[in-house]
């Protein structure tokens, strides 16, 4: 790898800690970001000559802090500028810094930085855009590309979101245990939003959006390093890894969606599966189950099956049953019904989703599943009607195409008879 690529990776990985600390110091996001930018510029000048510092984040925090203080002095014209090399000399900077930076702060610094992006008044898309800009340091251009909007529109969206959190009260005191765990939960939900923004994309957008899923996994690992004993963070990271492991198998050459049971399991990423399974293994030992862990366990049950027919559907049924207790929702019940149809047959599955008709009347997957259960029961006319409604509700061409295939098969059956 070239020097520049190495420095780039070092800056990326130090970013959350550096901006988090600068935010604590200046209590203003714009100042913190500008200070970090300035520190990065100096790093690009200094590191190739002097070699990288032992602790990149501490270097950036110290240099950024001094640079921002200079800026303040310059504006107020109170004092003369200190000589440039007083701040950019690595040796000078690093020794006293180790004493001055309180290591215990940095967990909460990063958590706070992530937490301000989860402001409840911000719509999900703005939370995601803000987190990608502030925490991950993606450029506005990169984010705009992932969201398939113009750069100017995204710039405006981020500026608006920033203005909103600037007005909100940012909590700077060190959080208590309860508050900290609330923040962790909010941040976990935001990270999963980022992941889903990347993961739920259709084929056409998949390539542009894949980096979001990868960034979310990186944020999950970061959270896990900060809070090593949180089983739900293990579960969240495992869930994202296990879902993303199937990325290459999810679309066929024409961009049509490939259902889990039809996917080429040879295309699944074994590294991600291995890491996901290891994390679930760790989480289970805590015996503090949660929604992310259960969803990860469901994904793991799929990942463990070498062939679709090896899938332990009874286990998946049981896992969805516990998810229904933790987070009751018609969508969870619908998913459980799919497992039930495999484990106990389509009649039970159909009975399970009948009461959901009202809640899920506008939901593509509801009619898709209903049609499939009816078809398995040989109730073809009703199946055709359900599939027809599914197509009308499809969100993407791939979804509609998949259902149309089922209808075509029904039509071909009828014609053959």
């Amino acid at each position, binding site marked *: 790898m070239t020097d520049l690529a190495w420095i780039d*990776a070092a800056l990326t*990985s130090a970013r959350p800690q550096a901006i988090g600390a600068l935010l604590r110091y200046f209590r203003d996001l714009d100042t913190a970001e500008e200070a970090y930018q300035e520190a990065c510029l100096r790093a690009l000048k200094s590191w190739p000559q002097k070699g990288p510092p032992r602790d990149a984040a501490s270097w950036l925090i110290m240099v950024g802090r001094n640079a921002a203080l200079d800026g303040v002095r310059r504006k107020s014209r109170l004092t003369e500028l200190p000589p440039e090399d007083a701040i950019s000399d690595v040796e000078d900077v690093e020794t006293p810094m180790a004493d001055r930076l309180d290591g215990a702060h940095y967990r909460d610094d990063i958590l706070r930085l992530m937490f301000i992006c989860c402001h409840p008044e911000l719509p999900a898309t703005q939370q995601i855009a803000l987190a990608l800009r502030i925490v991950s340091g993606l450029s506005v251009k990169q984010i705009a590309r992932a969201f398939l909007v113009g750069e100017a529109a995204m710039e405006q969206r981020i500026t608006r979101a920033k203005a909103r959190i600037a007005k909100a009260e940012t909590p700077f005191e060190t959080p208590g245990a309860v508050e900290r765990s609330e923040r962790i939960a909010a941040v976990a939900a935001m990270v999963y939003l980022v992941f889903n923004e990347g993961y739920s994309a259709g084929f056409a957008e998949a390539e542009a959006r894949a980096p979001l899923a990868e960034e979310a996994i990186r944020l999950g690992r970061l959270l896990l*390093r900060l809070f090593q004993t949180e089983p739900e963070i293990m579960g969240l990271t495992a869930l994202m890894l296990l879902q993303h492991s199937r990325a290459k198998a999810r679309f066929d050459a024409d961009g049509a969606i490939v259902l889990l049971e039809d996917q080429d399991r040879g295309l699944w990423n074994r590294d991600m599966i291995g890491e996901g399974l290891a*994390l679930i293994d*760790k989480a289970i030992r805590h015996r503090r189950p949660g929604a992310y862990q259960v969803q990860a366990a469901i994904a793991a049950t799929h990942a463990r099956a070498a062939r679709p027919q090896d899938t332990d559907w009874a286990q998946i049924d049981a896992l969805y049953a516990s998810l229904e207790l933790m987070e009751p929702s018609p969508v969870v019940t619908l998913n459980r019904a799919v497992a039930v149809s495999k484990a106990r047959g389509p009649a039970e599955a159909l009975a399970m989703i009948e009461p959901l008709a009202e809640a899920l009347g506008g939901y593509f997957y509801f009619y898709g599943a209903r049609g499939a259960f009816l078809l398995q029961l040989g109730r073809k006319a009703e199946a055709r009607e359900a599939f027809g409604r599914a197509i009308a509700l499809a969100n993407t061409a791939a979804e509609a195409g998949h259902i149309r295939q089922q209808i075509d098969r029904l039509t071909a059956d009828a014609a053959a008879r």
Partner: protein
Amino acid sequence: MLYAILCYNSEEVVFSWTKEEDAQVMENLAGVQARWAASGKLGPSARLMPTTAATTLRKGDTPLVIDGPFAETKEQLLGFYLVDCEDLEEVLTFCKELGAVNPGGAYEIRPLHYFSNGSLPADHVAAPERVTA
């Protein structure tokens, strides 16, 4: 003489590499490894999963299982095992048995991403004097 080579780097940096950068490094490494394997000098090599997947067992009368990597600095790395186990529970059972007959210190358990057996003969003795003994 057999030597173990332990690889250190900042995992935050390494896991910030893009897929392409990571693949490039792995490809370059494979090139070097292939030459040394061909000369019969390369034994097993492995790539560990990130420390977020690590678990540590602190030995003692009641062994303590801790999430995360081994973080103390007053103990030194003295050896390692490679085991093929069903799950973390089984590895911990093995570690507890080892710890019961070899007290003190800790075991850090790290799942592997990648493993290659290399090209060393199956029974290789480390110290040459043992060959003549």
